[in-house]
């Protein structure tokens, strides 16, 4: 490399990397430091070691938020993946109007979760909401409830609203991946007597494995980041029954002004994200490519 090239290289990399360091990496490191402090946002942070973390372990609201995040992860990995895959395979077949269907399914991913949340508020609304109206229309009045206000249903209601958008994303990823499945392979199997289910489980699903890895990784990461939909629908209530880690972090930081404690929750969240990063990069390297 010539000297001129080396200078150009440095100049090109320095600017963007400086921004990344100042607004991403340095705040990450600071968060970790704050997680070791007692800090109300006004006075200076006071170093208290791992006290925040031991407090987390005995904080029922944190444990509730953690469990809710775990439940969310399970639903997030199953519903969008399964429904998205099924729908993609069905829409990929010769089917009248499948193009129009696809557009309807694509639309949700362009919408903000703020807008999605608003619509779902109306779907769950107790008096005239869509679900209760339909139930009443079917004569099932005893099943109606305040879906978001009822501690028993609030979490699943929030998660399903989130799945609405996430399933659309999974569908798009699978539809694109299906275009790479060689049609001759499916036909050859069909001629050899493989029935529809065998074609699906033995050929299509294995060939779509890279897409499945991406779908699941995005579902997990989006679950960990998941804040908007909870904030818009329930703010974590009632009684933290629909709270998750991202929501509880916000609540402790900007409502209760426990900034050190909030930083500890953020650090826990970051730890979970790092696990995903490591698993994903290993997976990607195993198949000799990175996302993209």
């Amino acid at each position, binding site marked *: 490399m010539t000297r001129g*090239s080396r200078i150009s*290289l440095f100049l*090109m990399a320095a600017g*963007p990397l400086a*921004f*990344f360091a100042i*607004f*991403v990496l*340095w*705040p*990450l490191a600071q*968060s970790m430091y*704050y997680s070791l402090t007692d800090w109300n946002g006004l006075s200076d942070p006071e170093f208290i070691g791992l006290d925040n973390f031991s407090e987390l372990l005995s904080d029922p609201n944190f444990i509730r938020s953690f469990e809710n995040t775990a439940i969310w992860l399970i639903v997030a990995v199953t519903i969008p993946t399964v429904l998205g895959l099924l*729908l993609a395979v*069905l*829409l990929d*077949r*010769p*089917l009248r109007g499948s193009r129009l269907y696809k557009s*309807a399914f694509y*639309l*949700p991913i362009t919408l*903000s979760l*703020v*807008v999605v949340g*608003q*619509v779902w508020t*109306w779907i769950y609304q107790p*008096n*005239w*909401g869509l679900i209760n109206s339909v139930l009443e229309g079917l004569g099932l009045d005893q099943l109606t409830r305040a879906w978001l206000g009822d501690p028993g249903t609030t979490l699943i209601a929030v998660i399903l609203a989130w799945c*609405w958008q996430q399933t659309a994303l999974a569908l*798009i*990823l699978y539809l*694109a*991946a299906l275009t*790479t499945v060689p*049609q001759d392979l499916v*036909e050859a199997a*069909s001629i050899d007597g*493989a029935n*529809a289910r065998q074609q699906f489980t033995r050929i299509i699903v294995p060939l779509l494995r*890279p*897409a499945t890895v*991406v*779908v699941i990784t995005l579902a997990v*990461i989006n679950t960990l*980041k998941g*804040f908007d939909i909870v*904030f*818009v629908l329930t703010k974590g209530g009632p009684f933290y029954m629909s709270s998750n*880690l*991202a929501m509880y*972090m916000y609540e402790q930081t900007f409502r209760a002004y426990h900034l050190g404690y909030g930083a500890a929750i953020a650090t826990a969240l*970051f730890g979970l994200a790092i696990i995903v*990063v490591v698993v994903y990069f290993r997976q990607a390297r195993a198949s000799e*490519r*990175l*996302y*993209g």
Partner: protein
Amino acid sequence: MASAQGATVDEKGRRERPLHRSFVLHGFILAMLVIYAAPIIGVLMTSVMSNAEITARGVWHIPEGATLGNFLDVWNDTPTPRYLLNSFMVTIPATALSVLGGVLLGYVFSQFRFPFAELLFLVVIAGMFFPPQAMLIPLFRLFNSPVEIFGFQLIPALYDTVYPMILIHMSIGLAITTLLLRNFMSALPSGLREAAIVDGAGDWSVLFRIIVPLSLPALAVLATLQFTWIWNDFLWPLVLTRSEEAKTIMAGISALQGQYNVAWANQAAMAVIASIPTIVIFIVFQRYFIAGLTMGSVKE
């Protein structure tokens, strides 16, 4: 998926499935279609209903009449125009800068081998997976205090302006832009740079005269994705703005949701207005948008 004897074959040589199965499958697709269309049709209908009608019957019915009054009310009586302007003032520069940064880093990581290059690359693209909560408190603090050198105020506190959101979105966005552009540039014919360098060109002109024009499809993909994500973001404006002068449209909608005097119909009209830019972008650039989302799952 047909296995039955004598099934019809379509023009691509794929067999039509037998009727009973077709019925079940169509039922499933139809059910999903209802689940996806209902919320969207619901918002659109609500946005043209009168408030009296909603008070009487809720939002889930065919409107008795259509009015554009809600849109006018929202436009004239709420800070919606200001929110929209702020959203554009954040989204356009942040999108452009994150793509520009990705162009520079993509070129560096695709054309040069240097110590720790791979590690550096991995650290940057890992940024895609970082939850924003992990940066939230320090950035909130950073933008709440002025930048001073020797007691001299260099930059005032930027809290409650659009600038912090631009800086943050552009920096976090570098992860995806660098990844996709590095991969795209690596796939360009090798030796482009060497040939140009031999002809006496510098790296800057190689990048902006040769590589960037060849990378336009990737730039279009990234611009549509980044625009959509940044436009739709809610957490950063929620935390970093307080006044109407700085709020983006998503933070604005959320703030007005909490006020009882903003009626359902007006909220729906606002939601429609707020969604138009990303829907237009999606319709115009659909091909690029989907290509961007799927770059990970489609094997070349």
